[in-house]
């Protein structure tokens, strides 16, 4: 694994800053970032702009799918990743976090490890297609962030995915 030094320092800084002594009472509402987890939304720009995140998501294709319990890339996935690599070569100002996900048919810990395998498969492939390793990071969400919520194969097949989530400038998750 090649590490992104700058991002590593960022994580350490966050960890120090995050400590607190508050005891949390009865809740209040918190927000989540809808652009995370490979969901639609966020400031993606226009799909007609070939340098935009929206274009990458919709025209290039930001995700690849996997078979049950597998992390191997099929032909469709490799084609998508070839296009991603090409786009990243043309848009060097972007970095990316590759999210690995699993469907809900599995234990929590195993699915975390499986999601990591999937994200890594994409990471290694993109690097093999010329994307600089220091532009990429991987994260696993296991079964924590399904895209489709039914409990059938039609949903599971969409949830067994790795999503290349772009960020302009730096790797701030």
């Amino acid at each position, binding site marked *: 694994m090649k590490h992104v030094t700058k991002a590593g320092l960022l994580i350490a800084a966050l960890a120090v800053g995050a400590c607190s002594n508050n005891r949390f009472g009865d809740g209040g509402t918190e927000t989540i970032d809808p652009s995370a987890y490979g969901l639609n939304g966020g400031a993606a720009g226009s799909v007609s702009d070939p340098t935009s995140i929206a274009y990458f998501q919709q025209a290039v294709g930001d995700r690849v799918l996997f078979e049950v319990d597998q992390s191997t890339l099929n032909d469709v996935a490799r084609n998508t990743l070839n296009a991603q690599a090409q786009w990243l070569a043309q848009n060097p100002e972007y970095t990316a976090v590759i999210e690995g996900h699993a469907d809900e048919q599995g234990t929590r810990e195993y699915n975390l490890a499986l999601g990591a395998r999937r994200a890594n498969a994409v990471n290694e492939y993109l690097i093999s297609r010329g994307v600089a390793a220091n532009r990429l990071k991987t994260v696993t969400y296991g079964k924590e962030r399904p895209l489709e919520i*039914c409990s059938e194969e039609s949903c599971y097949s969409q949830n067994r995915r790795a999503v290349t989530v772009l960020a302009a400038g730096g790797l701030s998750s």
Partner: protein
Amino acid sequence: MIRSKLLIAAAALAMGGVAWFAAPVKAQNGPLRIEITDGVIEPLPYAVPDFIAENAAATEYARNIARVIADDLTGSGLFREIPASAYIANVTSFDSPVQYADWKAINAEALITGAVAVDGNRLTVKFRLFDVFSGAPLGKGLQFSGTTDSWRRMAHKVSDAVYSRVTGESGYFDSRVVFVSESGPKDARQKRLAIMDYDGANVQYLTDSSAIVLAPRFSPTGDRVLYTSYETGFPRVYLLDVATVGRRILGDQAGAMSFAPRFSPDGGTVVFSLTTGGNTDIYTMNLATGQQRRLTNAPSIETAPSYSPDGRQIVFESDRSGTQQLYVMDANGGEARRISMGEGRYGTPVWSPRGDLIAFTKQNKGRFHIGVMRTNGSEERLLTSSFLDEGPTWSPNGRVIMFTRATSGANGQPALYSVDISGRNLKRVPTPGAASDPAWSPLQN
């Protein structure tokens, strides 16, 4: 005298090597006693009249404490309460002699009496346990004191004492559960750590829901919790102090993801999974020095480690054979031997506090099960079956397993359930909303 209809069996679970399904045998005449085994099919009938309020301030506590004791004992599945409507006599004073005939007449084999006094915010509970059919007290009277807002704990302590005297095993009622409280839709679930009494009372939140949190685990003394959080954007193991909710991240390996932490039995070491380059292996970290050590080194997934109570071995799951299976290795790593041999996939093994069994999640033919097996993998038994059961945790006495059960579909929700290791007494544990990933504390002091 214990009545003959109370069936007992050899204490198979407590002693290794004895047949798992011991045939029920009739009790010998003798003192009040439940031998806890699979053979127990008749819960012990008991009465617990409202405790005596020794002053006006104690009135409500006296009634509520008796109710919590009844909930504990009946909830264990080993006791059956004779309702107050059946009483033909009342207890009017803690120190007046017990009229055994009055309780024998309504078939109460055990009688629990008690008294409560409140002085300011100080509450004192005394109780006695009687073996009605022997016409004698069972053990000495006991007294517990504490603040009025810890009244439920004092009730649980009485329940633990009763349970222990009748079964010969320690109880589990004065204990807590740390878990993940969930809200929101399935594709954007918000999760936060929460802690509560074992019976769902006194819920408090330990984190907010700004980051996904997973799988909290108690320290051996119950004062600290390990868990996984996405606070940094990546899954990382954290250590949290329950009293102050102060927390710190463990380790600083850039680019790594860590999860599935558990304490060693001495509380000084954390065993966990670390993922680098897509490969997940098992590591330990010394909490005092931060020194990290790699225990497995394989291209397969190695995760969900759990120490044996003596700290000498670790059970974990690995897919090195092609599917998830359970393995046991020395606590310092090295050669691992596979212990799960049945059909299907096995994960999340947890060593029982008694050391005799390993609880696990099993996935087979589209169903999930919680099961137990001997530490060598023999005598596997499945206790539950559903769309999704996972993540067992042991009661402090090794008698009960709590776990996550999730329903299927777009509106599927997780909840906490418990089941006796006999497979009986399956029930939902009350939580304020959806809940997952329970971890049971040791008995409190």
